[in-house]
């Protein structure tokens, strides 16, 4: 994105001022960073043995297993939420009033209720009613139910954003409403939606950290267990945070790439 129009191309004086300000800012940032490092050092968090553990294979294997847990939960939840969300979006766009109302009700309710509350329903309410759900499904079902509603809204926005002329042309050559949706609208909407769907998957992946609440061994929960076991909480959390950022950055880059490709085609 280009914001260069906000300021002139610098002349010699402005360029000098920019250089001075650049050095001053860099010095200030370096000072803040140095202070943070000094604070960590003063509390012994920088001691090598706090960090060396993360290069040993048992710990790495443990963290990779946890990453696998996160990815598994996210994949299964996504695989459930995506198709159901698409169907729900179509239901909300349906011409049958009862179907439309039911879909709207589901979407609005589950977008307005926090995910954690939903998790507590699976964790506390269902066992009280005598229904026992395995830990994995406590997390995955709650995440899917919530994200189904979110995906449905993304899909609906994509279908509505498509030029009306497409539907009109499809109907005018004699396709039924269903055929027009299936053959004309949905394929185009899906292609346009690819970037937003990938960004939504990032949100979904982030939400699997709620496994912390139900004690499902994904990254955050495993970090807590490991950190409490080794008495090494802060470094463990920092390593996991970095891991999350790397994985999600990769997904975000993928979304950007898809977005760019879409514009190149359009």
């Amino acid at each position, binding site marked *: 994105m280009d914001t260069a129009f906000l300021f002139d191309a610098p002349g010699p004086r402005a360029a000098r001022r920019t250089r001075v300000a650049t050095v001053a800012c860099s010095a200030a940032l370096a000072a803040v960073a140095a202070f943070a490092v000094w604070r*960590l050092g003063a*509390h012994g968090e920088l001691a090598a043995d706090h960090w060396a553990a993360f290069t040993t294979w048992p710990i790495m294997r443990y963290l990779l297993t946890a990453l696998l847990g996160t990815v598994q939960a996210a994949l299964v939840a996504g695989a459930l939420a995506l198709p159901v969300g698409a169907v729900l979006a179509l239901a909300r766009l349906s011409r049958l009033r009862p179907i439309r109302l039911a879909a709207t009700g589901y979407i609005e309710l589950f977008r307005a*209720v*926090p995910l954690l509350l939903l998790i507590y329903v699976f964790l506390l309410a269902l066992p009280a009613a005598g229904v026992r759900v395995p830990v994995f499904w406590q997390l995955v079902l709650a995440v899917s139910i919530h994200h189904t509603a979110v995906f449905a809204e993304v899909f609906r926005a994509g279908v509505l954003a498509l030029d009306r002329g497409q539907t009109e042309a499809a109907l005018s050559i004699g396709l039924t409403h269903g055929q027009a949706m299936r053959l004309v609208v949905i394929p185009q909407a899906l292609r346009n939606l690819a970037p937003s769907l990938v960004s939504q998957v990032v949100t979904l992946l982030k939400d699997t950290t709620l496994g912390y609440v139900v004690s499902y061994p994904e990254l955050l929960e495993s970090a807590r267990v490991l950190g409490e076991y080794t008495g090494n909480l802060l470094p463990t959390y920092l390593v996991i945070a970095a891991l999350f950022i790397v994985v999600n950055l990769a997904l975000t880059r993928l979304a950007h790439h898809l977005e760019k490709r879409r514009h190149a085609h359009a």
Partner: protein
Amino acid sequence: MGVVLAHLPEIGGGLLVTLELTVLAFAGALVLGTIVAVFRISPLPPLRALGLAYVEVFRNIPLLMLLVLIAFGLPEAGLKLSLFASATVGMGMYAAAYVCEAIRSGVQTIGAGQVEAARAIGLTFGQVLRHVVLPQAFRSMAQPLGNIFIAVALGTSLSASIGLMDLTGVTRLLNVAYAEPIATFAAAAVCYVLITLSGGLLTGAVERRARILR
């Protein structure tokens, strides 16, 4: 139903904590997000890099991870905050990244002609931002900022999982104590739906008043 009626004060207290958290975190996010957005569009490379790094880190770290890190990780480095402060700071820093991106896309919608005109009459970068760009950007941003407000309101529920007694936390406690899930969860859901709905209505009203007709 009896449990909910008998414990209205506790539920009200939880709701109050949720609202306080939401308002404080959102206000903090607005201020911090604006600063980061100014960094991101400023002419100074180190500030731009800092703004970009901030957004990339805080948009890609899970909120719960951030809350746990602040509440339970930082005390090891001698930085001990109360649970409420941890939740507010974490939520605010997290939402600031989204506010920054909303402001940046709001700035994009302002015509280059506006900025060029402002520069042509001799305003500096700071003056252009303060008098021309940001006032207009904020007016076109009611909808995205409203969505962030709702996300913050729902996000504050995560503070229950670090032990704060907000609306979700109180609901969980009542469930553990009385095992009457339907009434308690329905009550909490109604509260959240009301918060979301009023947030949406407020956003709509602000948008209608602030909208610039072009």
